[in-house]
């Protein structure tokens, strides 16, 4: 990891949403940094804050949400940057692909227009040039006959094709960072693979950094350099991908991996389910938010939030008071 400033450097990001029943802290101090061309997998269950994190970076958090901390992108803090200047980053230097291609495309606007409009705005292209670029982008993401189909409406495409369109949309200005927020969750597995492969290849071609947000550990397992696991608005463990699967330390990561059915799971075997349910973010107690569901809870877990610490080197971090020692135990 180079010591020069990373492409994206998020520090202590907090997001508080006021609700009638009190404030909800959906992000409680998230630190993420990402180098150019790197891929970060962001994994967590629903409500863990992973989507809110992605949206905070894109400036599309809910209207009344309060953001604190820093989101440094290429040396500029997006949170303090004037809106106008920030808009030159969003859509131009950071692109985003949303979860549901059925809803993230405007049903009444031709797809060519939806793909090209960011380029028209940010790159100062004419309507004609933007259309040309949209066609090129559609071709890039594998839409057949893009010169014809750029005049189509979203409903004329299948789910997979629509997601290709949204990827083209996010790539319109050749961004430095692509955020894919559950970009393949709504798709069938065969389509999911195609889309993920497509994104990966484009990313490699363009030296683009990427944040791959997913609830599915399988999705991130072979497509990311690093994986960060989120729980209750925090990153609880972060490490290079292979190490996370083989040498995870956080008890939540461990439990999550055990709970997932695999192809090598014996028939009718008992899965190691995580009991209980995710915590209520409006009423978090001190200490580790996973402690109430954790099978390895010790006193220290409830006394204070365990700090982030490194496992062996600077690449692997976790926040657990009673970490698993899978590797050490094996060796």
């Amino acid at each position, binding site marked *: 990891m180079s010591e020069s400033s990373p492409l994206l450097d998020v520090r202590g990001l907090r997001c508080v949403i006021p609700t009638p029943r009190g404030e909800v802290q959906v992000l409680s101090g998230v630190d993420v940094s990402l180098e150019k061309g790197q891929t970060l997998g962001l994994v967590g269950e629903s409500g863990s804050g992973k989507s809110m994190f992605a*949206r905070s970076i*894109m*400036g*599309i958090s809910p*209207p009344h949400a309060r953001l604190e901390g820093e989101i440094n992108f290429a040396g500029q803090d997006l949170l303090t940057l004037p809106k106008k200047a*920030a*808009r*030159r*980053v*969003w*859509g*131009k230097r*950071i*692109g*985003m692909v*949303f*979860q*549901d291609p059925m*809803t*993230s*495309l*405007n*049903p*009444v*606007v031709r797809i060519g227009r939806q793909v090209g*409009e*960011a380029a028209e*705005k*940010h790159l100062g292209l004419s309507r004609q040039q933007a259309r040309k670029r949209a066609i090129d982008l559609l071709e890039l993401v594998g839409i057949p006959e893009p010169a014809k189909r750029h005049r189509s*409406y979203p*409903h004329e495409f299948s789910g997979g094709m629509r997601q290709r369109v*949204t990827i083209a*949309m*996010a790539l*319109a200005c050749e961004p430095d960072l692509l955020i894919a927020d559950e970009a393949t969750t709504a798709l069938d597995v065969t389509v999911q693979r195609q889309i993920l492969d497509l994104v990966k290849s484009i990313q490699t071609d363009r030296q683009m950094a990427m944040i791959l947000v997913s609830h599915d550990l399988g999705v991130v397992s072979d497509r990311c350099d690093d994986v960060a696991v989120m729980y209750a608005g925090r990153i609880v463990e972060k490490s290079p991908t292979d190490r996370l699967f083989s040498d995870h330390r956080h008890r939540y990561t461990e439990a999550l991996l055990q709970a997932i059915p695999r192809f090598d799971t014996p028939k009718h075997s008992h899965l190691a389910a995580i009991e209980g349910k995710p915590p209520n973010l409006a009423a978090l107690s001190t200490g580790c938010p996973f402690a109430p569901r954790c099978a390895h809870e010790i006193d220290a877990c409830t006394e204070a939030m365990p700090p982030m610490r490194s496992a062996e080197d600077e690449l692997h971090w976790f926040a657990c008071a009673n970490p698993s020692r899978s590797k050490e135990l094996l060796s």
Partner: protein
Amino acid sequence: MVILRAVAEKLLYLLPVLLLVTLATTLLIDLLPGDPAVTVLGLGATPEQVERINTEYGFDRPFYERYVTWLFGALTGDFGNSLVTSRPVLAEITARLPVTIQLTAMSLVLAVVFAIILALVAAVKEGSKFDRMMAALASASMSVPPFVAAVVLVFIFALVLGWSPVAGYSPLRDGLGRNLYYMALPVITMAMLETGFFYRILRGDLGTTLREDYILAARSKGLGTGYIMLRHALRPSLFSLMAMVGLSVGRLLGGSVIVEYFFSIPGLGQLLVNSVTTLDIPVIQASVVLIAIFYVLINSTVDVLYSVVDPRVKLR
């Protein structure tokens, strides 16, 4: 062409409705209180005179005979003569129709334009003072019936400010400026109520649309708010509004009866009021049918327009 054919097809479906409406108007003579002949002849009417009128206009014949006669006449464009003026009904109506169409259309356009502008601004400033104020204003305007609005508007703009005439009408052929000078207050009167309805429905739909992922996607592209509102949020929010517009044509036509009478505007509504009070059956019959056709036509057009606004709706 597709659109025209679709409208024609819709009208075909509505033929039975029109037949029913015409049938009902034929029954009017039996349903309306009073005897048209006596009404037209006045107090000194003698039974002989009454009989003569009844025979001349066929009021004494059974209703199915009247209906068939009327229907065949109507199909050839002959709606009979007015009881009061003896003029052909068609001439009476065609002289008045453009006025009502202008009044209705202008009110509709004004209401739609205002509602769209205000709703867009309020939706951008969701939860702001402006938004809350507009919500209150819209409710208020919806609860003010046209005849009350008319009195208030006349008081402010004609009596206090003196910007507009109290009542009256100037035909378009005498110049657009004069025409608008007279039409302004009636149009605003009619538009006020509709603006409220339109605003509320559009503001609500915009609120929903703005929560859609594709709006987030548009914002994530770094597009400006105005651009997003106009290009991405407005059109998908128009569907309920369009349905409302179709319905509001009916309300406007109904409202025009009051507003035209109040402002002395010689439109179809005024003609209808006069005809009802003078029991001018032929005119009532033709006016009602015409209004029904007009209404049906507008609503069919709205249905067809859905396909223009929403590409997902396919014309069949």
